[in-house]
């Protein structure tokens, strides 16, 4: 098992937390982290844990995919509460989703390459909605 973008998350007691960037100049958060803030260009960027609460903006179940991905699989945009949009796969081939449903990040297998399964962040319907 290999991991894609391993620096992009941490596993906590509350579950998977995505780690992006926070800009000290404009205050915006973004994902993934980059050396410069994509919003204002500042280099005053530090790692930041992102909200575990998000909403499903849109999704699609893919039936024709590049090598390594196992069709059908579902992908979507999740808008986290700190105004960060994250694209990712949706766990378990969930195909009966409703837009604006609360979602949360979770670890899972996203594809298989020559070294075996690749693990990364995915999303699922939120289990605890506060």
């Amino acid at each position, binding site marked *: 098992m290999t991991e*894609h*973008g391993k620096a992009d998350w941490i596993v906590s007691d509350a579950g998977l937390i995505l780690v992006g960037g926070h800009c000290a100049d404009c205050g*915006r*958060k*973004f*994902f*993934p982290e980059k050396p410069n803030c*994509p*919003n204002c260009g500042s280099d005053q960027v530090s790692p930041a844990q992102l909200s575990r609460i998000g909403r499903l*903006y*849109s*999704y*699609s*179940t*893919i*039936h*024709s*995919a*590049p090598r390594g*991905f196992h069709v059908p*699989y579902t*992908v*979507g*945009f999740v*808008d986290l509460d700190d*105004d*960060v*949009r994250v*694209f*990712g*796969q949706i766990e378990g081939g969930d*195909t009966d989703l409703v*837009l604006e449903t609360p979602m949360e990040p979770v670890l899972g297998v*996203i*594809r298989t390459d020559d070294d075996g399964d690749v693990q*990364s962040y995915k999303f699922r319907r939120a289990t605890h909605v506060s």
Partner: protein
Amino acid sequence: MSREAFIVGAGMSRFGKQSHRTIEEIGQEAVRAAMKEAGVERGDIDEVFCGTGYGGVMLGQRILRDLGMTGPPVTNVENACSSGATGVREACAAIATGRAEVVLVVGVDKLTTFGGGTLPLEASDPDVANGMIMPAVYAMRARRYMFETGATPEHLAMVTVKAREAAALNPHAQMRTPTTVAEVLASRPIADPLTLFMCCPSGDGAAAVVITTAARARQLGVQPVKIAASVLQSGYYKTGFRDTAFSELTARTVALAYDAAGLGPEAVDMAEVHDAFAIAELMYYEALGLCERGEGKDFLERGDSKIGGRTPVNPSGGLLCKGHPIGATGIAQMCEAVWQLRGQVGARQVEGAKVALTHCTGGGIAGFDHGACAVHVLTV
């Protein structure tokens, strides 16, 4: 010095699967056709632009090599699906500054090289690493658009049915067999809610135009088509919320084009728009100002975008049915516009067309609406 630019010749290769031909041969077919229509000889060409997405380095030189046209400045242009249109913008600049009198622009791609399936995207892109494909970019737009407007998969299918009706009248088109809403919905799923027939086909093709000054156009004795606006913009990268049910990039680009041409959407007699997937056409009716936001499905249902309707959209069959060899697309749209404005397309003629708009976007990049958007306004 600033001079207006005119298209005096347009040419297309066959569009479709042509794995037996080289990309250079396909490009040369379009170049010869455009030069013949313009009535220019190889020695007349002062400068050349070549747009391609996947054709590789020095494609312009490779095309010209076998036509005895080497020597003049050649610039190869890559802007994904806007590559060809971006080349036309550069040609307009070459005319405007006075550095060239006659400019050739060719756009070409040979997508059968990839053996079918969806277009390869940048492996380093974070969304691509997580399984993004181009149809899914549009599929998620479609899902959101339907959620917000009440449009249905039947509306998406109707776009394809309309495109096939038009393509049946276009000998250059790749997909010319008429279809039905039921058949489109029943074709195999690609990225839900998009089915195969709601996606443009993979194919090979080239298109070319010859662009010159007003004075030279008069000497050539062909009917010139004025490039009244040539505008290019790039997408904004957004880290947070981005409204994918409305194309900000297209709306921004077309506003600049309308301003440059001194007209508005009500003056447009026909449009060739970037319907790479059926949802795109509904969204672009709105972003181009042909109807109000959220009313794309009504514009379609009323037949306003059909040949004979209020503002015919994609009378060529569009990318969905004419085909979409990406580097050629922006120029192929202009070929259709030129021939429509000259009144020479026969059964698919938009009667009395004097103002045509061509619109293409380009590139699926994480965090962008699109990478590029080019809009041209052509008039006679």
